[in-house]
């Protein structure tokens, strides 16, 4: 997946970088399956398809003038250095986390034990997402709706009347 991500960033041509991104997305979907999250695998796969459609929509026949100007080298070194610092700090911080296989399950233990009785839905993930934390699902619907109205607002022809 990391390899696909680096490829997506480095490839010169636009369309193939979008395809490399979808490869990274599919890798993520597989990772969800391995990590026992089938619910997410389906959603990730489908959302990723839509993402790729929209991205390809944007890049059908567009050029990619990749010109390197003077300070190019300095910029890359500066960004790489800052990323290295970020990685160093994250390494230090990650040591503190509880180790990989044993998540301390303070709250979700109750979800598992009482999930079936309280909500009656065997698929705990939907139970948590819709019933226990239903308020988030409401916010989720609002997010989709803002994206819809936002695209409509951005895509209209004349914005301000008098100037055009």
């Amino acid at each position, binding site marked *: 997946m990391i390899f696909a991500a680096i490829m997506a960033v480095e490839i010169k041509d636009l369309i193939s970088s979008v395809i490399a991104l979808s490869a990274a997305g599919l890798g993520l979907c597989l990772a969800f399956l391995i990590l026992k999250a*089938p*619910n997410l*695998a*389906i*959603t990730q796969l*489908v*959302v990723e*398809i*839509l993402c790729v*459609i*929209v991205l390809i*929509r944007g890049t*059908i026949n567009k050029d990619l003038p990749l010109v390197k100007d003077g300070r190019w080298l300095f910029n890359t070194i500066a960004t790489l250095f800052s990323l290295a610092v970020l990685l160093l700090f994250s390494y230090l911080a990650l040591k503190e986390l509880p180790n990989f296989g044993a998540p301390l399950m303070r709250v979700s233990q109750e979800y598992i034990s009482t999930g*079936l*009785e*309280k*909500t*009656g*839905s*065997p*698929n705990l*993930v*939907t*139970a948590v*997402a*819709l*019933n226990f934390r*239903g*308020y988030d*699902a*409401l916010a*989720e*619907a609002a997010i*989709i*709706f803002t*994206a*819809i109205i936002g*695209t*409509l607002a951005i*895509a209209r*022809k004349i914005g301000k009347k008098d100037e055009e």
Partner: protein
Amino acid sequence: MSLIVKTITRFTVGLVLVYGIFITLQGHVSPGGGFAGGIIITLAFIQLMLAFGQDEVLRKLNQEKGLLLAGIGAILFLVIASRIFLKPQQHSFVAEKHFQLLSAGFLSLSEIAIALMVAAGLFVIFLTLVLLIEEEEKEKK
């Protein structure tokens, strides 16, 4: 699109649509919830549109109707959600009918509302992006 693609889509669109509805209704039993189901239904519409060209699909579901549908789905979900939040009640479910279709009461109702809204809404987004390009091409020519 070529004839082959048309015949293939004629078969698969129905299948994809049914699969999307299945995922939505089975949201609380098997994996995959309202969101995934809704998007699968949108993909079925998009596939239809790609295969059979724009005008035919637009006759059935153009932007206005899509937006209307999305709005209704959203209002439905809002009503269901606020009804539950305002009257907090813990209803325990009878054990044995857990795995049937509509066993979680309001849960599958809100799933359907979300799926309706997601399907109609994302299709409207696809339409706006595609229609935008047609006008752009016309300007260029």
